[in-house]
């Protein structure tokens, strides 16, 4: 009779981040996958839902002095200092390869001022092969005494509006977790027209060498990432998903399919894999396969069916 039911087929992994359709929900996180070429021999890039490139600024940035990284318990601190080639060289040197990846290309942007963000959005809108912008608002607003855009709702909203005005590309705003109430930030950004939210960026931390009594990072403080931050990220994704209606990309300590599925259940439509690319370059492909396996085991025909599927109560 109904024997079509008995053979589980390949589940449908497609998701949509507002106007941005992805072949599957697994993307790479900014700053952990370079400009994709770095992983071209290790990962089949065309299998990825998307690649988010290292943050780009208007002018090249040299970055911080070394040491820039320090390993912590199940995590790492980084103070790269947003080193990048600048938007001009990004377009001329990095985009040609990115166009050949066969997956969605999201360009992460950063600036010192609202004008910087707007100018970047303008520049990049005219470039073929870019599918969306991701706005890193965890950067200091130089004109406002160095307070991070992402820690004041009105500044986050202003950046979002400025970027939206300059581009027709889908705009993802990447939230900083270093705030008292992530929901306030998420609402401010969503109400200003963001197409999607991504969270979380790194948690600010620090390391000290007791023997030398010196900081572990030349910059003294840096961003904590990796498995250590997953519970915090998961909590924030769940809180934000419960409060806003635009799609969410979950980020933070994801290294396995199970990790990714937890974020989807908490309400994320897609995920980004960051630090795991360093310790396991094959992580992204393994996560894609693992999500498909999970859906088959759970008897689900599409990944959409589990998004926000967290069961609460008895």
């Amino acid at each position, binding site marked *: 009779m109904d024997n079509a039911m008995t053979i589980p087929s390949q589940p449908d992994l497609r998701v949509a981040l507002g106007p941005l359709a992805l072949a599957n929900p697994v993307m790479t996180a900014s*700053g952990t996958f370079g400009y994709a070429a770095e992983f071209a021999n290790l990962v089949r890039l065309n299998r990825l839902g998307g690649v988010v490139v290292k943050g780009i600024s208007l002018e090249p940035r040299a970055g911080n002095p070394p040491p820039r*990284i320090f390993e912590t318990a199940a995590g*790492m601190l*980084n103070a790269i200092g947003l080193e990048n080639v600048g938007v001009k060289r990004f377009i001329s040197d990095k985009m040609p390869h990115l166009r050949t990846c066969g997956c969605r290309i999201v360009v992460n942007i950063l600036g010192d001022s609202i004008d910087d963000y707007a100018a970047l959005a303008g520049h990049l809108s005219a470039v073929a092969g870019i599918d969306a912008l991701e706005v890193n608002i965890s950067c200091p607003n130089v004109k406002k005494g160095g307070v991070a855009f992402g820690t004041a709702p009105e500044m986050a909203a202003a950046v979002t509006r400025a970027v939206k005005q300059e581009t027709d590309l889908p705009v993802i705003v990447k939230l900083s977790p270093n705030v008292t109430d992530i929901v306030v930030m998420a609402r401010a950004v969503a109400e200003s027209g963001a197409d999607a939210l991504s969270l979380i960026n790194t948690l600010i931390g620090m390391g000290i060498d007791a023997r030398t009594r010196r900081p572990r990072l030349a910059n003294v403080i840096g961003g904590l990432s990796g498995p250590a931050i997953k519970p915090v990220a998961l909590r924030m994704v769940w809180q934000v998903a419960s409060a806003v209606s635009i799609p969410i990309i979950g980020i933070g300590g994801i290294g396995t399919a199970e990790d990714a599925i937890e974020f989807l259940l908490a309400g994320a439509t897609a995920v980004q894999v960051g630090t795991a690319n*360093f*310790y396991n370059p094959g992580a992204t492909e393994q996560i894609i396969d693992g999500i498909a396996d999970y859906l088959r085991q759970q008897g689900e025909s599409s990944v959409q069916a589990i998004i926000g599927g967290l069961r609460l109560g008895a």
Partner: protein
Amino acid sequence: MPEHQEKSIVLSIERLSPSVYRLTLHAPLIAGEARPGQFAMVACGSTLDPLLRRPISIHQCSGDGRLQLVVKVVGRGTQLLSEIRAGQTLDLLGPLGRGFRLSPGPVALIGGGIGIAPLLFLAQSLMQTGQADASCRVLLGAQSGEDLAPLAAGFETLGCHVELATDDGSLGRHGLITDLLPAHLPNLGKVYVCGPHPMMAAVAALCASAQVDCEVSLEAHMACGLGACLGCAAPGADGRYKHVCKHGPVFKAEEMAWTTR
């Protein structure tokens, strides 16, 4: 020259001195392509702590897919590596980075401590390709004879001229290996050096004043080894940061800034 993520098989592990171990692995993909001075990112444990891979130089490769690493135990990751046993697997990412540029003519290889490890592969390549001959000088130093002797083995049988120095005088000359370099410099076309940073800075300075080419193999804390995280920055002579995993780990000495540290 593609990188591979390869699950190698541990063929043997030998203790060379109280804190130094030699791992012989079956890793045909990486062994087949590695060049002297390149390294692998080694997954030391099987859990999330320690999280990151450790950069370890390729010590030797053979045509039959064998690859050797020499590891000095200095912390948790290298301790775990020293506890691995034959038959187990070891997840490697490699070969990575830019190695030594081999050039013909009279050369010296200078190594300090565990920095000697990558030089054997270099000496083999130089001798086997005929780019170096018995005039090849190998100057090696370490804290004590116990540390130095196992690392220094193998160079003489290749036909190199080996000179040793130890900090405590228990093997070879009592003092710094760099003290032996000036006597040779007038006859050298190129110097390759790997060891503690102050030693490399001293060799770079000596070579610069004698106008002899010098290549150095640098260390940096690394997360990816692939040029993606930008964590491994080292200051270049042009005022810009170089990435040790990608632009290096071997650099021309004049490319780098040697002022501080």
